Each structure stands twice: as C-alpha cells, then as structure tokens.
C-alpha cells in the first residue's frame, strides 16, 4: 500500500570508501550487533525528537539469541541516549539509563522472515510523545530502518533526512521539494508511502546537504503537511 518513486538507492554495486574498510572507529565487540545497534538507537532517538523516558525493545533472530554477549541491549540504549558508536560509555549504558530515570525492557520475539538482526523499538518521550521504529542491522555497522509508526520506509541514517507527515493529495511532493530547491538542498533519495488514497502519508527525503531549522519550519508550514522534522546523519 505504498508508492515508490524512482529515486531509490542504486548503490548496491558502489565501491565502498577507504574508511568503510579501515573504520569505523567503534566500541566492540560486533559491528552488526554493537555498532549497528547503536546507530539504530541513535536514529530512533532522533525520530522521537525528545529525551526518552520509557523504552521497550523487541529483539528478533540473532539479536534475540546473542544480545547479552554482544552488548546489543547496551548499544541500543546508548544510541537512544545519543551516544556515538565510539563512545566508551556504551558498556555502562544500562546503569546510565537508570541514573537518567529511563525505564527499559528487552523482550525476545519471533518476527518470522524479518532480517535476523531486527529490533522493534517502542519509545516514549518526556512530553508523552511516542514512536515505534522497526530497523535491522544489516552488516558492517550499516542499518536499515524499515518502518516508522506503521509507515514502510527505507532509511539508512547515512544522509540527513527530512521526514514529512502529510495528507496524501496532488501536488504535495512538489510543494515540499520546492522548499528544498529554494534552499539549494539536493535530494539523494526519496520515498513516499501512505495507508490509503487521500489518507495520512509519509514522505522521506534523504539529502546531500544539511537541513537547517528554517527549511524544516517552512516545510511544516506547507498546506496539508501535518508535521515535518529532520534527522541528521548518524
């Protein structure tokens, strides 16, 4: 139930860069189970957009089996608290979360054919705002967010992203991209999804350039846009 624009990533055969091979600097022990998990947490925290006070995380597959030994639980919480993949506080993230008054719970679930390193994160923020994010750690510290609050997405966190919640109607994409054009923000990848025709929809634009507060605010003012927010590259 979603449409996909033709600006999907074609990067499958791209040669990785020097620092994908010698790098990243990270806290061990596993790029997928630790560093990737930090990045999932980081993106989820940015999507929530405010400090989390309650966190419930469902772990699937290899994440569920080995999360304690790999510190995946610590890594996810560390990311939600905004720690980077090379922050030495990751190993103490459970204690730090308690100190910060964040309640957390980890459950092992079976999501069937989902990627073996999938996590479902239910976050509640300090104002009561909630977010549900599904994402997978797909190897080498790379991640793919596949669902935000019920909308199918494909977000890697490698680029700054603008997320726009809007009503599905003609011209809305042009209006939003027009704002970006005026601020000379180049769009790298774009995806639009909706529940049904004319209903609430979600637009994700990954950009080459940083998204200023002004850009986001102007997108928020566009008619039929309910909310717009940006998340930085992580």
């Amino acid at each position, binding site marked *: 139930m979603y449409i996909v624009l033709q600006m999907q990533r074609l990067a499958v055969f791209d040669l*990785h860069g020097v620092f994908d*091979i*010698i790098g990243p*600097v990270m806290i061990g*022990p596993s790029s997928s189970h630790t560093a990737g998990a930090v990045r999932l947490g980081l993106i989820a925290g940015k999507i929530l957009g405010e400090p989390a006070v309650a966190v419930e995380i469902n772990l699937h597959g*290899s994440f569920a089996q080995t999360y304690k030994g790999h510190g995946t639980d610590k890594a996810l919480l560390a990311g939600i608290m905004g720690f980077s993949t090379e922050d030495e506080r990751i190993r103490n993230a459970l204690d730090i979360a308690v100190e910060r008054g964040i309640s957390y719970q980890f459950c092992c679930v079976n999501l069937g054919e989902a990627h073996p390193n999938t996590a479902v994160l239910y976050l509640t923020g300090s104002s009561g705002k909630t977010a549900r994010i599904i994402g997978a750690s797909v190897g*080498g510290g790379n991640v793919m967010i596949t669902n935000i609050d019920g909308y199918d997405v494909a977000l890697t966190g490698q680029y700054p992203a603008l997320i726009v919640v809007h009503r599905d109607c003609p011209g809305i994409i042009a209006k939003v991209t027009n704002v970006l054009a005026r601020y000379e923000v180049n769009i790298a990848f774009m995806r639009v999804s909706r529940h049904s025709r004319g209903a609430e929809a979600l637009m994700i634009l990954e950009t080459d350039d940083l998204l200023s507060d002004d850009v986001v605010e102007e997108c928020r003012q566009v008619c039929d846009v309910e909310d717009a927010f940006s998340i930085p590259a992580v």
Partner: protein
Amino acid sequence: MINFKSVKDLVDLGESKNAVISELIIAYEMESTQISREDVLRKMKNNWQVMQEAALRGIANEEKSVSGLVGGDARRLAGYGDYGYTGAVVMKAAAYAVGISEVNAIMGRIVACPTAGSCGILPAAILAAAEKNKNTEDEILAALFTAAGIGMIIDQNASISGAEGGCQAECGSAAGMAAAALVVLKGGTSKQICDGAALAIKNMLGLVCDPVAGLVEVPCVKRNGFAVVQAMVAADMAMAGIRSVIPIDEVIEAMKNIGAALPKSLRETSEGGLAATPTAQAIEQKLYGHKSI
C-alpha cells in the same frame, strides 16, 4: 577519475600514472568523497592512533569479557615473547593482535579493519613491523592506504562478511590486507604487494565462521593472533621473491566461490563447527540458559 575494479586495474593504473597504490587510493577517496587530501590523511592518522591505543591496552589487559571466555591472553603472550620459537617480532605481532581483539571483546574502542571480528590483524602487523623497521609515519600511512585498497577490492569482488563468506572473508581478508601493508613497510613493489596479499589469503581460504555461543570471542580472538603471523610469513615470502602462482584477483574470486559453497551452518550462525561441539554447547547453555540452535 580513478577507476578500478580489480587489483590488476590498480597496478596498471599505478604504472600508467607512475604512482604507488597508496597514492591512488588517497586520490580515489578525495575524489569520491570530495574531501581534501589533508582531511583524508587526518582521518587515517586518527584511526592509526585508535589502533595503537587498542594494541597497548590489549597487551596489558586483565579484564575478562562479559561471557568470561576471553581476556588476559595477550598479556600472557607479550610476557612470554622472547622465549618463543617464532622470535620476538612475530610474538609481539601475535600479542598485539590478540590484545586488540580482547579490547574489542570487552567493549573497548577499536577500528574495524575490515570488521570488528578481524580488527587485530592489520594494526598488529603494522605496529610490530614498524617497531622493527623503524618506519616513519608517512610509511605507516602508505601501508594503511594500500591495505585499504586491497580490502575495498575484496569487499567489492567477494565479501568481508563472515555471514556471507565465512571467516576467510574477515580474518582472511585482514591477513591479505596486512601482508600488503607489511610489503609496503619493507619498500616492496606493487607486484610484491599483490603476491604478499595473494599468498596470505590463499592460506586462509575455506576458513569457516563458527563462533562459540555466537560471540566474537572463540575462536576469533586467538585466530587474530594466528592470522597476523600468516601475513608476516606471506610478506616475507613476497619480499624474498616468491611469486603467487594464482594472481591476487583470481584468489579473491576463489574466495567468493568458496564462501558461496559454504553451508549456512558455517557462516556466523553458530550452528556448526566449533560452535556445535559439546563444550561449546555447554558454554552456551551456561550463558543463555538454553541452546540457541
């Protein structure tokens, strides 16, 4: 435009431009990311700094991992060094490699190269060699960029993921990268770089990924120590003038095919190999209170 799809492309490009492999890789990175040479070098220097810190922390480490399976062995090896059969330099390299992997296992800071599971091999090789050769920082950076180039091509033409290609893709790739770096530190030619990398990888082909209880600990940590020694012997062979009969690009192709032929049980799933032994199963039972397979 710096374009290459194979190690041969890199060597040919180097000949036509009269440039060494490390310079081509630096130029490629500048071009593809649009950042200055200064910044590319700075990033690598920062990574080298983290590598050295991990190595020194590793050989002094007494802390155990959460599972209790690893920790403290690098310190033992570093203390034993001079009594060993293999000589002080090789023992030092092995100790550094085990040590960096231990730092990884205790949730310390490391540089994935190419992965976290194989993070000890390249830095250990360069650090031990540079101490012996008294290499300059510029030579060390050239070694790192050359290793990165080899790794980038393996990543593109085969795999650097244990889940896809088994341990040969992680520790095997790292050993090939380390051998290339070691040849650079001895002032070897592009051909010798290719031979060193090919010889090292050839000897790691077929290595499966069968981590006990799914953790990057057993056999990974000690295997980093063995792999750096393989890289050193491969570099010595290449510098002695020994050629690899099978060229590096074909070795990489073979690695890809072998990885594809490995059953899933031997590709990081912990369903086979060492992970399926009675001792490993007992460890898993103790850690998780249930068998994961």
